[in-house]
């Protein structure tokens, strides 16, 4: 018991120290790196709280993709103005510390008092767990995401698409040399990619298929797929293109199209909106979502409306 407490205490302490360093490091680049470490400690915290789905998502999306996006944005700032490294001195705000202390006290009060509330018997989560046996899915989180509260998930896909469209609308497409950081002629790059990219596809597929019964799912799988795309962009094997082709447009919207197509199509058979007809529909929609999420995140990273393979 005391070992558990020690591990939890160390993780909590690690989160606090890393968060402090993220906001107070002198250089922004160090802050970004420490933020990635913070995300990984968060992933450990999720496993301690018995939420492995969230641990996977935090490691892949919270730490991985967010960190990669931050570093790419930092690089763009350096490309725009190499002289001025955009490291501004930290500002001062007289109210910062009092406000921080008050919000800490407020959040702790809310959290601790919520712990003492008598747990309800008939929460939505309990109902979802009871209904799970009829669905043929073993992972209750996937069940909630794809069956019980799938309107949330559908709109989440829409948010991802809107973020991509918004980012494209406000900034010019990246130049091909802007995204790549590795000398493309380095001999080991090919060998590395030959291992990394198939591995990312393999892991993504496993996470997707396992996600119906075990921890995993379309979001984690999409993020792992995006990691493979990021590696290809960094090594200039995939380069930013000016205009998206039909394939890109279809792939980015595949998740939404499959979701809406099945969810609305089912109404023709007298079902209610978004009442998915079975496990096959869950698999189909999750696959489409994985492709969309992976490509959308890779495009956001590359800062381009489309990616094309490099002509050798």
């Amino acid at each position, binding site marked *: 018991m005391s070992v558990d407490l020690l591990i939890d205490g160390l993780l909590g*302490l690690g989160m606090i120290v890393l968060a402090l360093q*993220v906001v107070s490091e002198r250089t922004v680049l160090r802050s970004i790196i420490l933020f990635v470490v913070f995300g990984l400690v968060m992933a450990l915290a999720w496993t*301690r709280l018995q939420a492995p789905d969230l641990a996977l998502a935090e490691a892949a999306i*919270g730490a991985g993709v967010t960190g990669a996006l931050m570093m790419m944005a930092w690089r763009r700032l350096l490309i725009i103005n190499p002289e001025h490294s*955009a490291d501004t001195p930290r500002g001062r705000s007289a109210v*910062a510390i009092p406000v921080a202390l008050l919000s800490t006290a407020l959040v702790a009060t809310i959290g601790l008092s919520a712990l003492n509330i008598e747990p309800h018997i008939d929460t939505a989560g309990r109902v979802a767990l009871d209904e799970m046996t009829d669905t043929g899915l073993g992972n209750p989180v996937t069940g909630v*995401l794809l069956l019980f509260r799938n309107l949330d998930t559908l709109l*989440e896909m829409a948010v991802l698409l809107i973020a991509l469209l918004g*980012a494209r609308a406000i900034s010019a497409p990246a130049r091909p040399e802007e995204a790549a950081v590795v000398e493309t002629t380095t001999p080991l790059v090919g060998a590395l990619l030959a291992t990394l990219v198939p591995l990312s596809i393999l892991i993504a597929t496993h996470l997707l298929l396992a996600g119906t019964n075990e921890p995993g799912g379309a979001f984690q799988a999409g993020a792992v797929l995006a990691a493979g795309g990021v590696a290809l962009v960094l090594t200039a094997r995939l380069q930013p293109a000016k205009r998206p082709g039909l394939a890109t447009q279809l792939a980015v919207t595949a998740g939404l199209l499959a979701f809406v197509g099945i969810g609305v199509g089912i109404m023709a058979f007298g079902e209610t909106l978004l009442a998915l007809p079975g496990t096959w529909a869950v698999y189909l929609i999750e696959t489409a979502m994985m492709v969309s999420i992976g490509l959308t995140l890779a495009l956001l990273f590359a800062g381009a409306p489309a990616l094309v393979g490099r002509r050798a």
Partner: protein
Amino acid sequence: MTPTVFVLAASVVFGVGVWGLLIAEHLLRKLLALNVMGSSVFIIMLVVAGSGTAGPDPVAQALILTGIVIAVAATAFALALMVSIYRETGRASITEKDDDDR
């Protein structure tokens, strides 16, 4: 015991995030602070939702998973905005002076 420890740690992390958001000048650092705050809120959400025999509340987990993905989408859009601001003004910060000039 585990939930209490993480609620306390996440509360402090939230405070650190608020502090970072207020003192940071660089917009990228403000975004990092916002993401840190988001993470602590997710932890507290999960703990507050309570847990049964089969682990934490699945509805809360699904909502947090949705939240993590929305957070990365919003961060990506905010980063694009920041790069645009930097391209226009040469600074990756917003000060009160910007408001006065308008």
